[in-house]
């Protein structure tokens, strides 16, 4: 096993900040590219690359409208906690051989806790403006979230079996011979569904959705909107990095250095999530809840069985 050295707290902050700043920017550009290519619009690389910066500049100068009697504490806390949890999730993911910001032995439990707390942050976002559409969106997101939560836990536990550890570093180590995407073929699609859910995109675009005039974000303008979008992209990065580490062999790969492999795989997952966001229509929360408990949960059981029998 590689010797993992614990980064000091200041260095950890610098590393996570770098990962998130670059990641959020790239993820936003991916959104633009995905939208324009699916829409059949001309792709101008320079324009797409500058798009997030321009939007950020404009939104930071726009008024943040207050609603009638909002819960201001929760309204500020929602995007802040969402970003904080994304950062926490990134810390437990190994970025390259021997470099993990925080090599916690309970890595997947901590990741799961961050994901569960993210539900709270997202619910706050729907609750705090005191606006009917946002409220409805927040509540139905919770229905979806409670349903994908179980899938996420099952899938990560199955990945922990061959590693004999709950640390994501150990899970990456265990994929030296064969990646989990082949060893546990059901894990990756299930975890992608979870990732779409946490970032409320594509089929699970049930929070900030058009059918509720913007849903949870219906009252967001200016900095409030910018902060929320930033946090959402940060969460997408955290889940993409986790997908890359847990299912796609993390930093394993020939020729190139491990860190680069990890970055490439993370980017591939971000791109996939970005395209799915644009390409897949929303299904209703009730349908997803039935689907999650009736179909996806049995698949998660099956995935666990495959993982278990394979490890024997």
């Amino acid at each position, binding site marked *: 096993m590689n010797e993992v050295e614990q980064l000091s707290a200041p260095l950890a902050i610098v590393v996570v900040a770098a990962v998130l700043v670059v990641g959020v920017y790239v993820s936003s550009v991916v959104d633009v590219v*995905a*939208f*324009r290519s*699916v*829409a*059949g*619009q*001309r792709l*101008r690389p*320079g*324009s797409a690359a*500058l*798009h997030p910066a*321009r*939007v950020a500049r*404009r939104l930071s*100068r*726009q*008024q*943040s*409208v207050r609603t*009638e*009697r909002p819960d201001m504490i929760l309204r500020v806390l929602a995007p802040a906690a969402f970003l904080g949890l994304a950062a926490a999730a990134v810390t437990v993911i190994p970025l390259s051989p021997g470099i993990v910001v925080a090599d916690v032995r309970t890595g997947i439990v901590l990741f799961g806790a961050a994901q569960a707390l993210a539900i709270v942050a997202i619910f706050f976002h729907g609750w705090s403006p005191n606006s*009917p559409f946002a409220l*409805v969106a927040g*509540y*139905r997101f919770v229905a979806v979230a409670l349903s994908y939560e179980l899938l996420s836990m099952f899938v990560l536990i199955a990945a922990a079996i061959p590693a004999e550890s709950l640390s994501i570093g150990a899970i990456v180590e265990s994929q030296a011979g064969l990646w989990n995407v082949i060893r546990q073929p059901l894990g990756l699609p299930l975890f992608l569904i979870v990732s779409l859910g946490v970032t409320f995109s*594509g*089929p699970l*675009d*049930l929070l900030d*959705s*058009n*059918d*509720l*005039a*913007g849903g949870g*974000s*219906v*009252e*967001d*303008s*200016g900095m409030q*909107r910018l902060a929320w979008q930033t946090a959402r992209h940060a969460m997408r990065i955290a889940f993409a990095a986790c997908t890359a580490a847990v299912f796609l062999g993390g930093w394993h790969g020939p020729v190139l250095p491990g860190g680069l492999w990890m970055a490439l795989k993370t980017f591939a997952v971000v791109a996939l999530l970005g395209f799915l966001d*644009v*390409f*897949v*229509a*929303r*299904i*209703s*929360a*009730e*349908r997803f809840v039935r689907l999650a408990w009736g179909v996806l949960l049995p698949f998660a059981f099956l995935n666990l069985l495959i993982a278990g029998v394979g490890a024997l």
Partner: protein
Amino acid sequence: MAVTPVEVFVAAGSDRWHDVQALRAHELVRLVPTPRHATVLLVAGTIPASAREALDRVHDQLPHPRAVATWDEIVAGNDVVDAVASEIVGCAHRVMADPSTSSPGRLADEEPNDWRGVGPFGQGGEGMMGGTPYGRAMAMTADDRDGLSLDRLELRLGPFLGQLPGGLVADVALQGEVIQSIEFACAGSKSFVTADRAVPVARRLLWLSHALHVQGLDAFAVGAARLARRSARLDDDPGLARDFASLRRRMRWTGLRSALRSVGDRDGRDTLARWSAHLDAIAASLDGADSRPVSADGSMPITAAELAEMITGLALTDAVSTIIGFDIDVPAMTTAPVEA
């Protein structure tokens, strides 16, 4: 010049609402679902006097810096959509360059109810549920079908809502996200029918563009709006039928079918069947190059009361999908008296 699209919220009367959807095809404009996201408010079509206050409120809901563009005042050359888009981009740039020119509020800055200093805690409320804390009353309970007496939110939706056809006003009572009762209040008339008469194929494509937007497929909505703009031009476009078939093929992969199936069932037809009827009508009309107007065989006419009955008991999202599944004609707004 490479710029980011200007975010526009549309407040359209029912006579212009379809036309406005063509803006989705334009690269420099993005139609947003809520006024809070917009820089420019686009007013289009006839706004009756009864909707004037609603328009002003939507205007005031835009964050500063904001600007207003009016579709019907724009002098168009060959292409009205291009002219409107460049006007929108122009006024957005002007107001962002000088935020002091931001459009000032139109409604009086007055609280809905006087609450400051009222009541024992000075917030306008009294007791547990009474009074108007912070200016508004609290929702009260009502019986529900499952026996739980929980609060009922009574909302008047529309007429300028991103997800509903322009001019449509609905009084909705919600418990949770389920609609307990709904009544459509199209100014004056109590009934409307869906567009069962022959309509130009461009209008159907514009309906499709908006409907795709509501289902979360904004990128596809761009494609549909672009086809609509092409079909509206007079010259025959032989590639149009092929491109529409290609769009329809790609739509099959989006999971739209499973999202729409068995939503809003009525007489054995669901929203998916209604979409198919619309798409078939478009395809048929594009194939037979000369017969441009399409009659929607299969899409049944429906009155407001029937539609209300259909969507009572549905979750809000399914209700919106059901309403959008009909290409509703909201004529009443334009027949109401127009303010000079």
